[in-house]
């Protein structure tokens, strides 16, 4: 009888504790098969619902720092004969949700299967990199590489998803017997074990995907594991349950703790409800049908306004991983003159544009690496004109032009103390160092209908330039025309476009390396600086991350001076959630949805 009462109490307790959070997404998950998920089936929705359940050897924390995930420490790249090797020590405390321990077998199985079956898909391409993957012992794996492509090895190969070998082995064996093994394997719609306590439950196509707790807290290896962010930028992982510990080398965590994130799961169920339309999802958020809209493009300013006044809803804004920039065609005079570019850059008052003109709808950004990407951002680089008033900016620009030998028919007179009208006499008839008049410079920007932000700010920039006599002529035009002229015809003076970027500044090569000249590559300005090229190569083939980081820091400094691009601003990623759930943090580069780990960290607030 006692037992029965206890059981009853337990059941009631379980019911009371059974918590559920609901997220809105905009499309079905099209596959539950991990091999497909990372191949043709790689949609952002599939990732949002599933990718966090898989381990990888290395990972990144919210600030973009390289941290061990399934590894016990960050390994080193070592030269052995004509090969480069990485020996990874794995954590010994991890368990799959089916109870099997996570071992070197899982790692070796995953990498060899991808290569053997030639599983297609960009997200598997890192697994093709190693020549060989070898199990040294139960918790040690050794990778062999032909080339020392440090960045790719650490940020791609070693971040490849690892699957549960004891679940998949028989299936893969069976696949190998089929006529088309890959096709067969990819068509298997199964829900495999993950490394997390949560896993996919019921899926109703077109309606929802349910994620439920499948490992009890006491049996879950990661329950209670803490990720600790220190004020000084240091980072530590502590698992009180298994005793696992790791801390960052540079910087070493000391001093005050900034943020401590404990691993859950704190909810039993997460339902990803599918909405066909953002407006309807917003209505659902208001009605409380869902607690958060998972959406990689975020909300528009208008939608954010609509939600801001609502009860129990919190709207957060984060910088996007991306930037809007003005490119110079450095093949042509006067854009070929460094001081000219600097003069224009000096005129661009980002704070004024973002806060006054765009009324805070954009975030000022001056470098191709957003400051929030702390590991790679060089805070020492100063932007031209930073902190100056408009008058001082005019003065700086004029002096830069003068320095390069530019002359005017009527030289501009600037009074930097006058905040309202610093330009006393506008410049007229700008002449180059050779005495010839500077030809009209065409400045291409997308029009009002496509992007009002760029169109509006471009008008200010045109006016500022004109005030000191730079013959800048803004042309608001079709987006496609700009793309064609910049990337295919390479026939432009200046244009104003944007990029979406990743956390790791591998994009430096494609934007600025002299081997990536447009139209073959993306280096539209025609920037060719051997010093810069060398830094990029150094970055990619660095011996260690300090070296890579240094190279990128230096590259940022050079870019800030050479200015093939003027980076102007970035868009905020606006998201909204109901205050009855709590994320471990909501200030993160690229927005909440950019951090895949949160399902196990999210809490329900009573």
């Amino acid at each position, binding site marked *: 009888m006692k037992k029965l009462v206890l059981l009853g109490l337990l059941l009631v307790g379980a019911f009371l504790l059974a918590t559920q959070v609901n997220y809105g997404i905009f499309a079905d998950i099209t596959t539950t098969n991990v091999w*497909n998920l990372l191949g043709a089936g790689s949609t952002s929705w599939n990732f949002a619902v599933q990718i966090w359940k898989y381990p990888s050897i290395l990972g990144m924390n919210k600030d973009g720092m390289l941290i061990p995930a399934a590894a016990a420490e960050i390994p080193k790249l070592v030269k052995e004969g004509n090969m480069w090797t990485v020996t990874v020590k794995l954590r010994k405390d991890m368990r799959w949700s089916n109870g099997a321990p996570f071992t070197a077998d899982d790692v070796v199985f995953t990498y060899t299967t991808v290569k053997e079956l030639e599983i297609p898909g960009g997200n598997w391409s890192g697994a093709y990199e190693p020549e060989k993957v070898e199990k040294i012992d139960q918790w040690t794996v050794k990778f062999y590489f032909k080339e020392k492509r440090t960045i790719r090895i650490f940020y791609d190969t070693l971040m490849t998803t690892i699957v549960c070998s004891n679940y998949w082995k028989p299936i893969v064996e069976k696949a190998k017997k089929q006529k088309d093994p*890959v096709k067969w394997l990819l068509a298997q719609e199964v829900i495999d074990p993950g490394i997390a306590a949560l896993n996919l439950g019921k899926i109703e196509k*077109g*309606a929802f995907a349910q994620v439920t707790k499948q490992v009890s807290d006491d049996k879950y290896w990661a329950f209670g594991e803490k990720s600790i962010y220190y004020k000084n930028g240091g980072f530590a992982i502590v698992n009180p349950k298994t005793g696992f510990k790791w801390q960052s080398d540079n910087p070493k965590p000391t001093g005050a703790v900034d943020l401590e994130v404990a691993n859950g799961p704190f909810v039993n*169920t997460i339902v990803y409800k599918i909405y066909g339309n953002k407006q309807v999802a917003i*209505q*659902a958020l208001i*009605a409380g049908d869902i607690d958060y809209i998972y959406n990689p493009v975020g909300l528009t300013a208008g939608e954010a306004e609509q939600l801001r006044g609502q009860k129990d809803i919190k709207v957060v804004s984060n910088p996007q991983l991306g930037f809007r920039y003005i490119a110079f065609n450095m093949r042509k005079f006067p854009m070929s003159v460094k001081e000219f570019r600097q003069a224009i850059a000096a005129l661009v008052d980002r704070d004024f544009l973002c806060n006054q003109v765009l009324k805070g709808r954009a975030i000022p950004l001056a470098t191709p690496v957003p400051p929030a990407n702390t590991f790679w951002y060089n805070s020492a680089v100063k932007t031209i004109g930073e902190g100056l008033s408009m008058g001082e900016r005019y003065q700086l620009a004029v002096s830069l032009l003068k320095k390069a030998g530019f002359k005017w028919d009527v030289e501009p007179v600037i009074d930097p103390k006058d905040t309202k009208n610093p330009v006393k006499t506008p410049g007229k008839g700008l002449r180059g160092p050779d005495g010839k008049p500077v030809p009209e410079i065409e400045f291409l920007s997308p029009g009002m209908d496509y992007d009002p932000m760029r169109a509006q700010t471009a008008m200010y920039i045109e006016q500022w330039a004109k005030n000191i006599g730079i013959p800048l002529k803004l042309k608001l035009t079709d987006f496609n025309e700009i793309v064609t002229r910049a990337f295919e015809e390479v026939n432009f003076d200046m244009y104003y476009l944007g990029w979406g970027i990743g956390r790791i500044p591998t994009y430096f090569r494609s934007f600025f390396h002299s081997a990536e000249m447009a139209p073959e590559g993306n280096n539209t300005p025609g920037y060719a600086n051997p010093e810069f090229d060398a830094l990029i190569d150094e970055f990619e083939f660095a011996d260690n991350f300090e070296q890579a980081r240094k190279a990128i820091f230096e590259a940022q400094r050079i870019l800030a001076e050479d200015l093939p691009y003027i980076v102007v601003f970035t868009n905020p990623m606006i998201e909204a959630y109901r205050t009855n759930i709590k994320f471990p943090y909501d200030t993160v580069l690229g927005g909440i949805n950019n951090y895949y780990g949160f399902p196990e960290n999210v809490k329900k607030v009573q």
Partner: protein
Amino acid sequence: MTNPVLIFVFAGLLPAVGVVYAIYKGKAPQNYIFLAISLALYYGALTNFRYLYLFSPRFNYILAPIIYFYGFNLSGLSKFIRNRLAQIVLLLVIYVTVVFFIFLAMPGDYTTKFLQDPKIRQNPEVYERMKQLFGVDDPWYVKYYKHMKNFFNLELGISFSEYPKRVEEIIAERLPRTLFLFLASSVLSFLLGFDLGKRIAWKRGGLTDKMATFVGIVFWTIFTPFYMLILIWLFAVTLRLFPLSGFITPTKWFDAPFSAQAVFIRLLLTELFMLVMWIIGIVVAGRLKTIRAKRTAIWGFVIGGAIIAFVYWAANGMGTYALDIVHHLALPVIALVTLHFAGDMLVMRDTMLEVIKEDYITTARAKGLPDKVIRDKHAARTALLPLMTSFVIGLASTVSGGVITETMFSWKGMGLTLLEATTAQDTPLAIGCLVFTGVLVLLAHLVADILYAFLDPRIRY
């Protein structure tokens, strides 16, 4: 096919019956030529003799009976149906071909976009592997042959965006939902539009007429997404009468031992069953004389059907789940009915106004018939004809035209699928959706023609 009974039936009995009947019926020698062709096609398909079929043996199974009936001197409706079927098969081939070439001519597709992924381009091995997998490098005629063959084998290929799912699987999943929603709303809006249209036309010029016409035009011209959003806000967010969107409440379905699809298909069948009962009611009513008897017959069949349906759902254990779906159905149906009844109503009103001018209406009045009889039996019955055609044809087009509804109510059906497939440049899926919609349109036209022939004695083909 190894079962001797089946072999006997399909290879022996069935053709033999056909031959005997054809010889018994046939008169001129040329009739036997059709019989011979038909038999050749049939056996060609049966024995899988690949020189005797064009795209696929299944296509032969469609062609053989049609050609067989060309061996007879049919007349009237049966001749019309046979000719129409032949035309539809021809149109189908043309349509499927046209769809193929449209997509062939369209620049780029999912694969090229997919292959643009820098991570894939970095790795030539993966790149080649992908290209081979998607069959990108085949010449167009090989693609075309494969396309036609696959279509008639009902193998519509593999979706790019939901790789490696088969297109027919996706369509099989989405079609019932779309049909269910649009059948329900179309029939309701048709009935509402028919009834209101006939009433306001009868009392033309009055306040009701003006109001109804005004309201109808408002609904007819309203910006659909906006209207639907208002409905959602009003009924789901503010009044909380109906669920906001989607077709099921997730929490209720966590422990369901079956998929929503299973319930959906049963619901669709129930709906069709009700529709058939209603039509039977109408046919029976057509044989009865008095209005009261007619009404009793129709209601009798409808209510009888409803009782059978209720018993079925009460017995099969899915009832509560079905109710959940029906509850979700309410809001989109309200939206669609309010939007579409207006069109039907205005069409009905206009045809009624035309019909009212006809002399036989004056005759009916002069005969001393009561007003209601004249309106319902004489005017509305004739005015029904054009409405019926627009209804049946509209039924087919709603399948593809439901993009907005399906988007707003998160009702993942054919419209949304076609939209997503097109925007994602998922050619096989888009082709599949289009082809299916095309087949539906063609079938709807056939149904409309046959219905028309039944409803309008003047039409004899």
